[in-house]
């Protein structure tokens, strides 16, 4: 077996993609099943993907992905579309800056880690720490998500991160949240699609949950707030977006949503004593 290519250094001209990548009219197809080395090492796959991006491809289709990590990290072309068939590994689309990634399968942990802008659409489940510290863009998950999802998301100016979850989210949803919107729909689930400690330490942003949220499920710093007209408009718009991405028809039962918002944008004012001793 040929050792997996481990390209390092930007000037290094490798032959990654020789067997598995075809490019036709600016559309690249990378079929990992055609590679001699299976499973392909993540450094090789990322090298091939970067090569396709450098060629200016408008779309990149990945077939047979088997847990390769860090796919499309820091990808920065706004018009680029990346389709992933199979199961991408951790940190899919980390630091993403513009492109759209669509996963026809499940994603693993830390999808959209610290993403800046762009869209990540997951047709299955996306697991723990999805959307960590996202600063913009949209992550849509048709199925369920794991623990500590959407934590420390923050917004600034026009950048407003959004996380839509069709199924459920486990504990610590939106922990440390500083901005942006999380919407959990709980489709096909029981009365409460979220776990405990929702919005622990949140000091910005908003979490909408379709279903019920009991007080004991809220983390410190989070509180249930009344829904206003602007919130209902935002939910409707996000549901349209969700239906558009997945071809679903989510019921528009807007009276069944709970809004969770921070108790304060300054959770630590009054916590410290600045006396000079």
């Amino acid at each position, binding site marked *: 077996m040929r050792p997996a290519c481990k390209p390092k250094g930007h000037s290094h001209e490798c032959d990654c993609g020789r067997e598995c990548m075809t490019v036709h009219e600016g559309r690249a197809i990378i079929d990992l099943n055609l590679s001699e080395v299976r499973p392909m090492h993540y450094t090789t796959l990322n090298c091939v993907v970067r090569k396709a991006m450098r060629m200016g491809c408008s779309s990149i289709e990945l077939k047979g992905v088997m847990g390769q990590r860090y796919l499309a990290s820091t990808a920065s072309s706004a018009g680029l579309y990346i389709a992933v068939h199979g199961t991408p590994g951790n940190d899919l689309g980390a630091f993403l800056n513009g492109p759209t990634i669509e996963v026809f399968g499940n994603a693993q942990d830390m999808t959209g880690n610290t993403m800046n802008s762009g869209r990540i659409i997951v047709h299955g489940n996306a697991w723990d720490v999805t959307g960590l510290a996202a600063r913009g863009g949209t992550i849509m998950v048709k199925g369920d998500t794991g623990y500590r999802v959407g934590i420390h998301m923050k917004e600034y100016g026009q*950048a407003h991160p959004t996380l839509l979850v069709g199924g459920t989210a486990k504990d610590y949803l939106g922990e440390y949240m500083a901005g942006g919107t999380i919407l959990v729909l709980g489709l096909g689930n029981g009365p409460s699609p979220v776990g405990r*400690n929702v919005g622990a330490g949140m000091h*910005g942003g908003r979490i909408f949950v379709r279903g019920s949220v009991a007080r004991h499920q809220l983390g410190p710093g989070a509180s249930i707030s009344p829904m206003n007209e602007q919130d209902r408009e935002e939910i409707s718009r996000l549901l349209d977006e969700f239906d558009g991405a997945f071809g679903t028809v989510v019921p528009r039962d807007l009276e069944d949503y709970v809004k969770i918002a921070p108790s304060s944008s300054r959770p630590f004012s009054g916590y410290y004593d*600045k006396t000079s001793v």
Partner: protein
Amino acid sequence: MSEPKTPGKRMEHRLPERFVPRIDYDLCRVCKRCVSECSYQALEFKESKVVPAGGCVACGRCIAFCPANCIEIRPVPPQFAPHGNWSERSRRAILAQASSGGVLLSSCGADDTHPAIFDDLLLDAAQVTNPSIDPLREPVETVTYLGRRPGKLEVRDGNIIIREDDTPLIRMDMPLMFGHISLGSIGYNAQKALFMAAKELNIVAGSGEGGLHPDFYSYADRICSEVASGRFGIKPEYLKGVAAVEIKIGQGAKPGHGGHLPGEKVTTMISETRMIPRGTDALSPYPHHDIYSIEDLAQLISVLKESTEYRLPVGVKIAAVHNVGAIASGLVRAGADFLTVDGFKGGTGAAPRVIRDHAGLPVEVAIAAVDRRLTQEGLRNRVTVCAGGGIRSSADMIKALALGADVVMVSTAAMVAMGCRVCQQCHRGLCSWGIATQRDDLTSRLDPEVAAARIVNLFQAWNEELKEVLGAMGIDAVESLVGNRDRLRYRGPNPKLAEVMNVKHIGEGWG
């Protein structure tokens, strides 16, 4: 899980002053410059003369700007009944907290009286059998490289090949870098001065975790950008154009603690660079929530390497804690190209006093522990070890190198060069020297050109002193000093310390 603490009822109790400015009225010209310079409003003009108004912190600004040279700051003598155990400070702390119910905040490094171990180390010098070198007439090399080393040379067809397919090494003209001080903890002009000085000295300066102001992209090739738990301001420009990227796990002044920039300091400029709304608290979570293990850390290192296409060294900074050797070994195995160990006397813009003064490990011991552990495991020659946290002089720097650091990280010394008097009020945001503040009227007091020139002067002098010592030791390149603990002797009160640092006691000779 308890609800966050809401401020309790304030129960005021006046504490005695700590410092009082004394004015020699025979010399005072009543120009009132001191009143306008004092950002703590500790001086006021009243009934035709300038008088103390309380709250003096001994920042020394009034003294430096008094044209008549008529001010001196006096510490207030003890005001409480003497007691051997109940120091005045411990009682002040209790009285303050009984008033506020708050966590005592502090800044700069630990200011208690733990003696620096550096002061108990003596350097060796060459005599007779290993002649010394005059650095003014013979070359003494201080160039240092930051990054992962190949570990060995390859010989192919009789030629020596230095493998360069790993991440590149960053060349620095001296074994010194500026620590991570964020825009937010210090003002624009202060950070600009640090970056200008780093460029001039051809060393590396840390960005801190506050993102990078667009004006500073021109210094990017000398900046090590920081990825900390708050992930503030991380965008492609922040990762790609810089010299290196460093993941911050911990800081010596507050090991295990996160960061908290209070909303008052989140001005429009800070909000733009951190990419958060103006006036909100900027919180850095205590841990990185994607890192709960060495394997998780390896993923963040790898994703940063993928994101930067292996063009940059990726390092990890940890606070010196009791198990630092094993953790350092994990960092190297996780793929860190350099690691930074920050000792417990390291500085901060704001940290709970209880952590600043009581948690962590002295950097001297931490360096020796890391160097020894990595050497035992055959990893030491692969990475650059940086260390900081209380480096006050070239002597401290030289001793840190001899204990096993490749690069010394300094921050407080650079700020003192700019004007800082270490009055430990950074967390109040009122810095009269225009360094640790965001108030425009105060930051404008600092001229970045002047401040940068002073920093350059200081560290050029340190580098000359390093060469003097290297020459006196008969060593012609700083690399030969790194980890050379045989050139150190311990003369302190605790021989066990010498043993854990693997340094001989004074009086013990070679072999």
